[in-house]
């Protein structure tokens, strides 16, 4: 019962396409606020969640707020583990090249720019879920 003192592992699972519903946007808002709590944060993009990271999203024609650029700022919030499921991409005819480039500067490696997007097999996703303290689904 010493939850308060311990650094916990938080996983945010995103499984829905952006814009048709607000879940992607409001999930991102939790991630940004949560960053201030300095927990060990991972994001998983599974199923239609992979569309949240599509490059070149242009919402000007539907009036909905375009929040997709915010993903690229996640590195500044110490959110640097964005796991994208390989099988989910493949099933949709997508590759990682279709996604936004998202990177962070690694202060422990002379500020080298490193990719935040990690393409993970389904079996790695299973392991990722199994090692979490808290799973938030959107």
């Amino acid at each position, binding site marked *: 019962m010493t*939850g308060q003192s*311990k650094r*916990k592992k*938080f996983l945010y699972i995103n499984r829905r396409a952006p814009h048709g519903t607000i879940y992607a946007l*409001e999930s991102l*808002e*939790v991630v940004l606020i949560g960053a201030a709590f300095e*927990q060990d944060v991972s994001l998983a993009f599974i199923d239609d969640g992979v569309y949240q990271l599509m490059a070149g999203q242009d919402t000007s024609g539907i009036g909905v707020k375009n929040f997709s650029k915010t993903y690229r700022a996640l590195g500044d919030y110490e959110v640097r583990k964005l796991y994208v499921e390989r099988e989910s991409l493949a099933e949709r005819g997508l590759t990682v090249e279709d996604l936004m480039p998202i990177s962070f500067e690694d202060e422990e490696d002379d500020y080298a720019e490193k990719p935040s997007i990690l393409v993970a097999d389904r079996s790695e996703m299973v392991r990722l879920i199994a090692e979490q*303290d808290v799973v*938030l689904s959107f």
Partner: protein
Amino acid sequence: MLRARGDRDLRFGIVVNEGPYTHQASDSAYRFARAALEKGHEILRVFFYHDGVNNGTRFTVPPQDDRNLQRQWSELAEAHKLDLVVCIAAAQRRGILDANEAKRQGKDGDNIAPGFRISGLGQLIEAGIQADRLVVFGD
């Protein structure tokens, strides 16, 4: 219903992501919360996010022969000193206000129900950190 907490009694955080009636999420969360309390567990917080904030309006008037979900939550909170938190960002988008927010936003009234309070998303993260289990109910 009251019993001493034991070794296996945990602290739960509950997240409700949908409004009342339209989806079963709020009903399921309410029944889960009651069952957890009956077993001697603690409910650290119930956090209402997305359309879940709509559980916290006192303006609802459900049909006489149906349950009143807002009142169920308010009464459960009163009986067990539950912390019912409505997310402020989600509430602003959807028109849930307390007196304070109404004043700050220049609105001519408020609609928050008894036992609910409006606060930030940090309360959700804090629940995740402090609770032994976080259970999410949604669409």
